[in-house]
């Protein structure tokens, strides 16, 4: 088996999910390599080898300076053809998913996405992915090689192997249609107070148990400590305690952060369907019979007015240490 892992980079460093995927792929049979494409990326390429792979291919070309997908399809397609890779893996991102889909059509290859893990069965690869809002899991496969896989964020952790990889330059040849799109204005972050609830890794949500709009001060403080976004249940939005844009639930937004902290929320199904596929759910509620305790990973029965401030303090202490 010969696997190629696409390594995305930003601000001169390879992204964590890419390194994590490289670490995971390096544990598969056969040979594993990485490819990084951009302009001025020798350092990033060299550092990647510490996470796995025997060779890191570096496509360093001015024409790859802008983070556009189509030129990268050309680079990867060339590598697959020239080096004989049978498997190409990507860590989910806006860029990576566009590249993966374009490459699938360029190679006429199968692409399985939203994978949480991959298994080897001899020469066969089996992808494992959740479906239908995480209510069911599916084993997926490929009918031929090359085979492409796109992995969900947070599937793996980067692990340094203590080794290093050879960095090899790649000559870049681009198709005419890949060069048509141009970056007119590079990415700038909009002014906003913290991440949006759909994108945040951590969400702290408040419900009726807060007692009133002032209760959200506690929620905001904890969210700030954890570096997360603030959400609200329909009941409190209806009551005017928090804006509609923060509403999570059946008639609000659906979120699936790594950590969801539910403060003073009873957890009726209308709310549950908006957050049930969160990685870890922590619920704080003074009612031991609240439905949320049926599905929270950590259920805390107690007074949120005492627990939340202290929790925020402890989190800040750890963070600043």
């Amino acid at each position, binding site marked *: 088996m010969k696997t190629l892992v696409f390594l995305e980079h930003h601000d001169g460093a390879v992204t964590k999910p890419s390194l994590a995927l490289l670490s995971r792929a390096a544990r598969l049979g056969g040979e594993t390599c990485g490819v990084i494409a951009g302009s001025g990326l020798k350092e990033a390429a060299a550092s990647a080898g510490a996470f796995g792979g025997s060779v890191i291919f570096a496509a360093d070309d001015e024409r790859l300076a802008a983070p556009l997908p189509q030129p990268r399809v050309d680079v990867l397609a060339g590598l697959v053809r020239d080096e004989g890779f049978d498997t190409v893996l990507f860590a989910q991102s806006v860029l990576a998913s566009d590249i993966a889909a374009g490459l699938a059509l360029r190679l006429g290859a199968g692409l399985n996405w939203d994978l949480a893990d991959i298994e080897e069965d001899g020469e066969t690869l089996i992808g494992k992915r959740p479906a239908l809002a995480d209510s069911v899991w599916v084993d997926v496969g490929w009918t031929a090689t090359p085979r492409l896989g796109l992995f969900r964020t947070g599937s793996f952790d980067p692990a340094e192997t203590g080794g290093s990889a050879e960095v090899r330059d790649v000559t870049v040849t681009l198709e005419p249609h890949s060069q048509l799109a141009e970056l007119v204005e590079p990415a700038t972050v909009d002014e906003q107070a913290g991440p949006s609830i759909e994108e945040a890794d951590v969400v702290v949500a408040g419900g009726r148990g807060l007692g009133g709009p002032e209760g959200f001060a506690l929620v905001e403080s904890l969210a700030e400590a954890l570096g997360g976004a603030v959400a609200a249940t*329909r*009941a409190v*939005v*209806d*009551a005017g305690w928090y804006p*509609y844009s923060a509403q999570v639930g*059946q*008639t609000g937004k659906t979120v699936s952060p790594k950590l969801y902290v539910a403060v003073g929320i009873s957890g*009726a*199904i*209308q709310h549950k*369907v908006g957050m049930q596929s969160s990685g870890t759910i922590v619920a704080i509620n003074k009612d031991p019979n609240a439905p949320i305790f049926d599905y929270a990973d950590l259920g805390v029965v107690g007074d949120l007015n005492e627990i939340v401030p202290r929790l925020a303090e402890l989190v800040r202490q750890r963070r600043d240490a």
Partner: protein
Amino acid sequence: MRPSDYPPPWSDAEAVTAPGDVEPIEVGVLVVGGGPAGLAAAIRLGQLIASDPETAEALGDVPVAVLEKGKAPGSHLLSGAVVDPDPLWRLLEGVRAPGDLPTYGQVPGEQVLLLTSDRAVRLPVPPTMRNHGNVVVSVSQLGRFLAEVAEEGGAVILPETVGQSLLVADDAVVGVRTGDKGRGREGEELPRFEAGSDLRAKVTILAEGTQGHLSLAAFDRFGLAGSSPQTWALGVKEVWRVPRPLREVIHTMGWPLRPAARYREFGGSFVYPMGDDLVTIGMVVGLDYRDASVSIHDLLQQLKTHPRIRPILQGGERIAWGAKTIPEGGFVALPRQLHAPGLLVVGDSAGLVNVPALKGIHYAVESGRLAAEAAWRSLTGGDLSSYDTALRSSFVWRDLRAVRNMRQAFGAGFWRGSALAGLATVTGGRFPPGNNPTESDASHEIFSGDGASSYPAPDGALTFDKLSSVFLSGNRTRDDQPSHIRVATRVPAELGDLWVNMCPAQVYETGPAGEDGLVEVAVTPSNCVQCGAITAKGGRLTPPEGGSGPEYTLT
């Protein structure tokens, strides 16, 4: 105190308006409501149009339009149901074979049970309830089927469209204004705001079902009300997938309802097989009950724990839930006439339900058919009063008249009521004589009783809470819209409790009592499944934005 002491901030005149300045949309016959009655009218009109295209020209480019406030026809339809299929087969003659009707087969067998808390006594099936030759259906599926037939016949069905107000000019109904879409909670226009349109029609047929919004306004505007007020029952039902087939249609009386007269708890339950692997179970209770702690949803949950009922559902899975009111006043509560200039009223909106027989769907279909024929005749000079004439000569009138005093008898309690009902049956309605009046549901004194003390706590397997039930109804009402529920918001605690417990969808909540002893009533309109119970008990349900509400498919 009585719920009627705290009337809602609503006047039926609010649903009547003069035509606007904006260019209207012209249709021939406008049917408001895509249920069995409205669709029967649309189907019949399609047949008449096909048989006489020349006369049909008078109906213009869109001869028949049907407004449906739900996501699609069927989305807001809920019933038992065991239906007499004859009027349907007659309606569909030449268009569909009898076997095309979506049914779960003929009634396999029947049982009427009198329940006590731990036993079931079999009673002989009363003549009014005999179901030989009848079929089990899901009225929601029936609606979807009839909509297809209506469309094939040329009707234009407009889903997610509400009939908001009656357009009246020169004392005649000239059409309907549809509801706005895209208003925010305070009524403000959101970016995708779409104002309602004026739909003008030669004849408007109101087929809105129970407590029709425009129908109530029409009765008020044209003075059509009968001698006795309409009364309603609330039905809450579930559909279950079961491992063992149920082989008979079951009706129960008695437990968990309380027989003493002061409770005024009239009703019972039904358990019907839907094929081999589905069962529907429902509880129907008159809304003239008096104990503010009564919750019909919870009575249904309690019913399921009965040793005769539980085994039917054992090992099964609940797959649907819903709630809807049924007009119960019968013959004496019918409007004195069901037509007005430019207007006809059919089906449950007219109150054409035979309560002792638990039948209304086939009357709805027949009344829709007769209304279509009257509307058609009006194109060539006929008067719409011919609808009332035809209805009065039909089996609908005959049946309703025969059972006219039965329900009122139960106001005297279960045992006396049964006796009187039996008498009425045996004499074909000649005895007791006269027309016993009904009293409006909101006019009964309420009290805080202990009916709720025996309700089971939801276990999530056999018994369920209201919120998860609302979820199962498919209700995803957009919550960023104005509230469609009109109720007094400061009421005595007892009345607040009555509403909180009555509502199967947990729409109402009350706060603590203020200095004046009144409590604040908070409303969560997005939970509402538009059952209509509030309209019977002191408030007024109006239609929310089109497309809101449940999405029934199996009810």
